[in-house]
């Protein structure tokens, strides 16, 4: 019998989804394993999200978006910076996952986490500045002030690349959310074990529930439902699967979703601007 000090008993984790600030199991009861690198030993079981989990995540994102967008840009910036702080605190947990499940060396894993933290800080900084850089007072003919300001698109679905790239997708989440969008993220299958500490980072950063929702599952199964969902305003498609791309584009026409196809792997203002739309206001000033 294994005593309290026994190291023999290994209980494989079952990592849950992150929806609306909570950690529910998939309603489908399904799971899939993530293995230790180059091994048939199971590191953890992950929830295989279903269409209904996706629906719940979109509903959560939709209901959270107005409140998130309504926060001051400065506050959003603070919260993104807080995420970076919390990720810093969980650095070792992330490194352990990358070493054990993806075969990274400790140094490589450390670099990846470092880049992800940098991405959060980068977009935290931009959250209350990009409006000033992009917004404009337009010269118009007539007695009007004419302003153009960027606004959040709404609910953005992020389908991560097949090959897991942590810093890239954390950067994409930050670029999407810093302007006031909410997001539903479908993680890459191979690195999905990172969902657990990443969700804990979001859950402990004063981020309102529902702004970021993380799903683990099979993109082939869920992408059509994401593409057809009328409450999703934009899809960030980071996968290179041509068939999926064609199908997503076809289904996305029903509500004229903006598709951000294969976003660049870089930290830049341009990444934020892919998920904003522009509002121009004419304000009469009299003669």
């Amino acid at each position, binding site marked *: 019998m294994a005593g309290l000090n026994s190291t023999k008993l290994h209980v494989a984790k079952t990592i849950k989804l992150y929806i609306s600030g909570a950690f529910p199991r998939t309603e489908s009861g399904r799971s899939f394993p993530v293995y230790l690198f180059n091994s048939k030993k199971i590191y953890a079981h992950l929830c295989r999200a279903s269409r209904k989990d996706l*629906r719940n995540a*979109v509903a959560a994102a*939709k209901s959270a978006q107005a409140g998130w967008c309504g926060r001051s840009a400065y506050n959003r910036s603070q919260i993104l910076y807080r995420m970076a702080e919390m990720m810093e605190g969980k650095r070792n947990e992330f490194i352990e996952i990358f070493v054990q499940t993806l075969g990274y060396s400790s140094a490589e894993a450390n670099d990846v986490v470092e880049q992800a933290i940098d991405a959060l800080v980068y977009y935290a900084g931009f959250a209350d500045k990009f409006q000033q850089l992009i917004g404009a007072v337009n010269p118009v003919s007539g007695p009007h002030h004419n302003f153009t300001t960027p606004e959040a698109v709404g609910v953005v679905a992020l389908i991560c690349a097949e090959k897991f790239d942590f810093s890239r997708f954390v950067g994409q989440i930050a670029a999407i959310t810093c302007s006031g969008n909410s997001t539903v993220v479908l993680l890459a299958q191979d690195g999905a074990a990172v969902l657990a500490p990443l969700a804990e980072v979001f859950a402990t950063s004063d981020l309102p529930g529902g702004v970021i929702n993380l799903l683990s599952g099979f993109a082939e199964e869920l992408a059509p*439902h994401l593409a*057809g*969902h*009328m*409450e999703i305003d934009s899809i960030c498609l980071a996968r290179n699967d041509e068939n999926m791309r064609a199908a997503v584009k076809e*289904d996305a026409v*029903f*509500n004229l979703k903006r598709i951000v196809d294969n976003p660049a792997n870089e930290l830049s203002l341009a990444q934020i601007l892919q998920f904003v739309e522009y509002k121009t206001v004419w304000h009469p000033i009299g003669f």
Partner: protein
Amino acid sequence: MQNGISIQKHDGVHVPILAEPIDEVMLGERALSFTRRSIKKQSKLAAIYKCIEMIDLTTLEGADTIGKVRQLCSKARFPVTAEFSEELSHYKNFKAVPTVAAVCVYPAMVATAKEALAGTKIRVASVATAFPAGQILLETRLRDVRDAVSAGADEIDMVINRGAFLTGDYQTVYDEIVQVKEVCGDTHLKVILETGELATCDNVRLASEIAMQAGADFIKTSTGKVSPAATMPVTLIMLQAILDFYERTGKIIGMKPAGGIRNAKQAIHYLCMVNEVMGPRWLTPELFRFGASSLLNDLLKQVYKQITGRYAYEKSFSLD
């Protein structure tokens, strides 16, 4: 068990009020069991359409305006836009979206609703008897009913005297319902028990019996102004009371859960319960209604999902 309770009818006859004791644990379990039915595909679509037909589309706010009531009536007549129907009509399983059963408003808005619904089969229901509290002199409450009826209401939703009920004065509760029924004449009378204020399941059962004995055409759970409003267990108690009353007297009474039923999934659970407890005979708008406002939009979203396979956009439907 409420032993020895009886009420005196106007002809002097004492009628015992039969109120079975309620096992709350088993009640909860049984009510929960109705949420575990798997209703899919065409059956689900049929259930959703059925739910739409059973809605009393309601607006009971201090901020109600003539414009808002007209808008609600328009939504009752045309739950979806012509563009929506046109889009869905290309799918083979499309069927025209039905109208709701009734529009439920305050007495002052009855004339507006009647005018807006003229030429349709949609009924106008009016709350009355100083809804929702009912804490006003009886004569004034009766006047309230009279006014709503004379303004053209097809159905009256009255509240029972909870103050009298909770002090054990069941005769007053009974007498007041009888008097309201007399004022209603042929107008359908729904009696609101306001179960959220009755404290116990036994009281819900007792109040149901009193209302049915007094001449209610429908019994209704709640005003929607008190929490908890309609719940599955409370509705189950009332359904069972209706069934027992029917078996004893042969009189058919309708049921209306109201308040708190906001999505299609919940509504379908209620349909399952009605079907299994009462049988399909009660699955008609004549005998079962949902008092709701936001439910309709969720049902319409589910219609869209079932027919197109895509989740609907909330703004496809008007808010009121």
